[in-house]
């Protein structure tokens, strides 16, 4: 173990050779999983609020099941099962993407459920009185307001999601943390590498949560 701290470890070479590729994957995974997770999460939330048992039961089992298992286990499960189901090997990166969409859908569905429930029933009745179908009511009245009310919570969940992408370490996908780890190994400087990883994650997550806080103050609807 080297005793002295080596600042020359931090160089453009480090960034361009090891970090950028990983950062790109981490960010893309976060964006894809957020969009996919919100889409399927909204569907799950609508199922749970549909009042029809055959929709409520499977959605509830899915959401509660996902939320009681560690994400690492879910990542391992998909890495094992997806190739078995589609009959072809699948890369760690592709597997991680599918996993995060499926996993985050459960968490986003809870947020969207709260968002939909935050809309006063009278608005739905008003829509029905105007002759709107269920789909029109959801699309034009309920969901736009639910999204607006829940936007800060959705964004906070996205920051947590970004932190969680580091867990793809379990299946060896190349994300930002992996980039730092590989660089630390190659140069024999794990200490410098992990400190840098912590600083970069902190700066990204702290700035984002600061922005979310400001946004929250700005868009809060006064009741």
């Amino acid at each position, binding site marked *: *173990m080297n*005793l002295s701290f080596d600042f020359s470890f931090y160089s453009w070479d480090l960034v361009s050779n090891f970090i950028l590729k990983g950062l790109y994957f981490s960010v893309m995974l976060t964006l894809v999983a957020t969009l996919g997770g919100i889409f399927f999460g909204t569907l799950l939330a609508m199922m749970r609020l549909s009042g029809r048992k055959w929709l409520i039961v499977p959605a509830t089992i899915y959401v*509660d*099941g996902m*939320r*009681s*298992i*560690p*994400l*690492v*286990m879910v990542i*391992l*499960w998909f890495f*094992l*099962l997806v190739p*078995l189901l589609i009959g072809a090997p699948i890369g760690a990166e592709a597997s991680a993407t599918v996993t995060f969409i499926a996993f985050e859908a459960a968490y986003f569905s809870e947020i969207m459920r709260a968002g939909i429930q935050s809309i006063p029933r009278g608005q739905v009745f008003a829509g029905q009185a105007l002759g709107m179908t269920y789909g029109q009511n959801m699309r034009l009245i309920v969901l736009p307001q639910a999204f607006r009310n829940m936007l800060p919570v959705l964004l906070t969940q996205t920051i947590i999601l970004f*932190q*969680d992408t*580091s*867990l793809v*370490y*379990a299946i060896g996908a190349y994300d930002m*943390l992996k980039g730092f*780890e590989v660089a630390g190994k190659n140069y024999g400087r*794990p*200490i410098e590498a*992990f*400190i840098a*990883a*912590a600083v970069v*994650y*902190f700066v990204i*997550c*702290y700035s984002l*949560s600061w922005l979310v806080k400001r946004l929250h103050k700005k868009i809060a609807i006064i009741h």
Partner: protein
Amino acid sequence: MAWDWQMFCEDTLDRTVREGCFGKDGDITYLDWMLSAWGWTVSVSLLALLLALVAGVVIGTIRTLPDSKWTVRFGNAWVEVFRNIPLLVQIFLWYHVVPAIFPAMKSMSGFVLVVLALGFFTSARIAEQVRSGIQALPRGQRHAGMAVGFTTWQTYRYVLLPNAFRIIIPPLTSETMNIFKNSSVAFAVSVTELTMFAMQAQEETGRGVEVYLAVTGLYIVSAFTINRIMTFVEKRVRVPGLAAPGAAGGH
């Protein structure tokens, strides 16, 4: 694909099936291994929970002290640091970086380091709940404490904290369940808890589905048990007539 649950009865070294499914004379079967892994998961989680509660209550409380800017700042910094770095990165920091700074920690096992990492990580989240719990109390309670001549310490000890704890039991329940889930990250530093067992047994036996199903089942059983225990605690400590609205559940 056929099930093969018998693999749990196999010896981990020579892969022969043992009678009664448990190993004898120091040999262990996969079932033995899995149960001990569950034990590690429970130990890591409970110790980390203890640390997180102590640190979280202290940090959360000092963030609400009147007229003490610096403790508030320290508490806020604590929460931001532990909340904005991924848990896995924090575990690597405890494993690689902290022992280099404090040589005395070099001899610490991965188990202790994971407990520290998970405990401090969770302390930030508990501190946040304790703070909002205290701040959710009516101001009159603090003033009443002062009016009867309590010191700040006594006001917290006898008035604010007992009430705040009851408010935050539901979020503490989900935080306890989170600790069990988050303990899975210990696989990264080779603590042989459930997730580590799942990865290694899957590799050795090739029976991934059976291994993962069993491990997932144990995680669900753990989560369910905590939920029951905390619901029980919540009922026991409830102040009659002061039940927080909608406090049931707590997922």
